[in-house]
């Protein structure tokens, strides 16, 4: 049942870490095909955010390669990688606290600053997140967690990515807002956006995802179609809190 579409994003044999001699990722292979939603699951400290940092270029891998549509991007500066079409909603949202909501969104379009596009794209973002319209001049640091998550997502979309990386977008949100976040992800997936979703909220993530990987102590332990992992007894026991 292997699909023939080319990998939008592929990690091959990635080794990475922060301190010499302490590997955080060991031989990670991961693939996200065009138009696919892939979720990367794992416990605290498994190395999920590290994988995201490697893809964005914030952390140089010690070995292995990262390819975007067949072109190597490891070794590029983060600023160059966004230009190739990768945007990220970082863990903990990381909105620019002393910038207004609108300035945060505009910053998301920084890579497209040479045109007038970012100003026009704002309207589309406000349509998706009407809540942000009334907050546009408010400092992002003073928003609620849910509103900050909207800013972080809107900001990433302003980059008009081909591949969107989401690092625990549901973290710290009330259940209703968690649903809203996953609805948004489904909507984006419906529009054909390629998504890599890091989550600890395994059941919701597996619901929206096509395929999943499970990271344990820096190694990929399991991978497969989302439905299969959802019904896998071992996954159910360790990640879904059932069985």
């Amino acid at each position, binding site marked *: 049942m292997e699909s023939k579409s080319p990998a939008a994003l592929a990690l091959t044999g990635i080794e990475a870490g922060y301190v010499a001699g302490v590997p955080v990722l060991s031989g990670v292979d991961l693939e996200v095909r065009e138009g696919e939603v892939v979720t990367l699951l794992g416990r605290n400290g498994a190395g999920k955010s590290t994988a995201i940092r490697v893809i964005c270029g914030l952390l140089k891998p010690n070995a292995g390669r990262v390819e975007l549509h067949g072109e190597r991007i490891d070794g590029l*500066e*983060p*600023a160059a990688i*966004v230009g190739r079409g990768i945007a990220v909603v*970082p863990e903990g949202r990381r909105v620019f606290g002393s*910038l207004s909501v609108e300035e945060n969104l505009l910053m998301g379009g*920084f890579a497209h600053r040479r045109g007038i596009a970012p100003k026009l794209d704002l309207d589309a973002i406000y349509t998706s997140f009407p809540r942000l319209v009334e907050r546009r001049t408010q*400092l992002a640091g003073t928003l609620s967690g849910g509103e900050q998550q909207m800013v972080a997502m809107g900001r990433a979309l302003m980059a008009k990515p081909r591949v969107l990386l989401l690092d625990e977008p549901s973290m710290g949100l009330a259940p209703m807002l968690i649903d809203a976040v996953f609805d948004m992800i489904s909507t984006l997936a419906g529009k054909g956006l390629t998504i890599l979703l890091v989550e600890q909220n395994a059941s919701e993530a597996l619901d929206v995802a096509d395929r999943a990987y499970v990271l344990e102590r820096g190694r990929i332990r399991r991978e497969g179609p989302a439905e299969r992992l959802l019904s896998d007894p071992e996954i159910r026991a360790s990640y879904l809190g059932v069985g």
Partner: protein
Amino acid sequence: MTFVIQLMSGLAVGCIYGLVAIGFSMIYRAMGLVNFAQADIMMIGAFLGYAILVAAPGIPFWLAIIGAMLGAALLGFVIERVAIRPSVARRADQVYLVLLTLGIGIVLSNGARLIWGADPVVYPTGLTHQTLTLAGYPLPAVYLYIAVVMPALLVGLHLFFTRTWLGLALRAAADDPDTAATMGVRPALATSVSFALASAIGAAAGVLYAPISYVSFDMGVIGVKAFAAAVVGTLGSIPGAVLGGFIIGLGETFGGQLIATEYQDSIAFAIMIGILLLKPTGLLSGARR
């Protein structure tokens, strides 16, 4: 001295402190660093203005200001690249970085002494001795330049930081360099540009201060008062730096008159200590920056 002259002189020197304080605040915000070389960069700016006025006699004063700003911007850019960046990249502790900036300041001041000598110099321009009369009071003519350049710089900075991509990128990188990088900002370039900008503003302060003071390798000592101004207004805040500059400038002018001018410098610090006792994070902490 009458009240009006005092007031004008306090405001004028307050503008100078405010401009140098803006430099402190901008760099503090951009890289969390107190750059004690800031006032020596102001001093170099004052000498660059002097060099321009000597090299091109009769050149309009505002051109000397712009020339000094451009020269200082280049110097600031180079200092950040060559002297500060390598230590930051090796994750030097803040204490060492602050000591490093003190060292850079000493190098700059000794460099100026080597080039321009130990004796104070006076700007070879009519502006130095010129006075203008405001409502019957004689005031140094350079006050007029201060009154124009200060607001122009403030408006320019505001527009730069809120209306341009580069300004927005500098603020974003100051908030969170990694996240800004994932949006296409090069944080290292952003800090260099912040340094260049802070240096240019310092140079403007130096050239404007020269006609009411003197130009000498050791004029950077006013940096400690500008630092007090930046702290009073909350380090990192540009409006705070301006407010702090006026408080220190007016405070030391009137305070010096009330007590004795010898105590002017101590008054600046008495004000700082007093304000920090009441509001330890400075007057504009929590406000929009």
